């Protein structure tokens, strides 16, 4: 408990110090609860998510960093490894491949990498996974782009 708090506090200071280190990630801590974080990540370029800004919610367990944080998308996203309704993320480093050496910042980076490189063989979003697995890259991209426009971009007009 105390260790996780200390570690999160150090991470918070690190994030404050290196705010401009990664312009694609904006990691903010809840004002009242250091175990609740939100992150804004930019969709990687040359993907259907380019131009979108996606919000992530972090729920950090008290055993952190021995236990991974629970991360989910608050912004709707059409991605084979993200549950379309709950925003749950299927990412190995958030499950069994977690290492205490990872930080919330590095988790954000991993999620950006996952957005650019979907893993259709372990889908949480079956529609998206099936499109990719059947080789319909164009269909997947147009669907993903549509949802990016709908959910992850500022409304026009």
């Amino acid at each position: 408990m105390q260790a996780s708090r200390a570690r999160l506090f150090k991470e918070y200071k690190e994030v404050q110090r290196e705010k401009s280190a990664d312009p694609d990630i904006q990691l903010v801590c809840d004002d009242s609860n250091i175990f609740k974080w939100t992150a804004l990540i930019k969709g990687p370029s040359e993907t259907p998510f380019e131009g979108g800004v996606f919000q992530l919610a972090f729920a950090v367990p008290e055993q952190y960093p021995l236990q991974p944080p629970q991360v989910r998308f608050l912004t709707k996203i059409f991605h084979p490894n993200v549950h379309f309704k709950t925003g749950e993320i299927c990412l190995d480093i958030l499950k069994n491949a977690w290492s205490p050496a990872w930080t919330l910042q590095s988790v954000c980076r991993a999620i950006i990498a996952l957005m650019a490189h979907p893993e259709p063989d372990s889908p949480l979003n079956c529609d998206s996974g099936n499109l990719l697995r059947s080789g319909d890259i164009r269909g997947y991209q147009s669907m993903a782009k549509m949802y990016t426009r709908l959910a992850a971009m500022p409304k026009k007009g």
Partner: protein
Amino acid sequence: MVSDSINNAQIASAPNSRDFSKKKRTNRSAKLKQCKLDVRREQWLSQGAVKNKGYKEDQKDARKERDRSLENSRQRDGHNNDGSMHHESDSESPSNSPTNSLLCGDSGNNSGTNFIGSSSSSSSVSGSSSGGCCSGSITEEEEDDGCLDDWEAVADALAADDDNNKPELEHDNSCSQSPSESQLSVQSDASRELENGLGLDSAKSMPEGVGMLPGVSGNNTRAWRPDDVFRPQTLPNLAKQRSFPATDRHFGQRGVPWACNNVLPVPSSCPICYEDLDFTDSSFLPCLCGFRLCLFCHKRILEEDGRCPGCRKPYEHDQVESEGSVQGGSLTFRLARSCSMIARS
């Protein structure tokens, strides 16, 4: 108060500045040596006093004066490169000259005086009976005849130099060759050497601090200038801030010889809990992948899934236990393992 005394001295000596400048030219190298000694001795004596009168105005004035005199000396060096000047120009070049390295070693011993060496211009000027001035007059009488060959050339060069300098200088300081001024320049040369010495010295002691020095000097075009009088106040703090992690790490590596064979550098803090690694932690190598962490986190990880955070392989239990229980035997064992790792990679 310093500037006042400087001006007085200059005004008083203005009429016969040419004579003084002649003498000063030849005595320069001799003065350099003697002044250095005297100044250093006096610095030791008046160390406390100088520190106490570190007013900003004094520092500024002294620095201004010295800059001016340095400019002069630079130009003079450019004008005449005869024998008497070589010594000085050698010592002026900031690096690699043998005299300089000698001086560096010398000044490295008493780095405390470096600051005072630079500020001695203010102290010796304000105090009219300083060792530097006395030594100057003594050497003048001693060596006047020895260096007479150079007089004419030096005087010519100085005359030309005077003409060059006059427009730049204020009317107060138009007598740029006055003895107090020359004293200043000589001392500032000495102080610059001392500063160089300190620069190298600090370079040795704190590797990251070196990058800082030229950056500071970029503002003022001289490596030693901004930190001459401020030095005692600022430098220790900066050094502490800049080089603390680095020295920490160095200490860790040096203190733990068997850990030096590791592939990864020893981190200064535990990557899991971000707490600083102490000596025991930094000598603790639980996994062959070289991932280090503090003993607390290691214990917690063993209680949970028991995998190394670096490579995600389960910790080898026997090795860990042997390290924990039998210190001496495990150390040699670990050394052998890390050596074999290096051979492999």
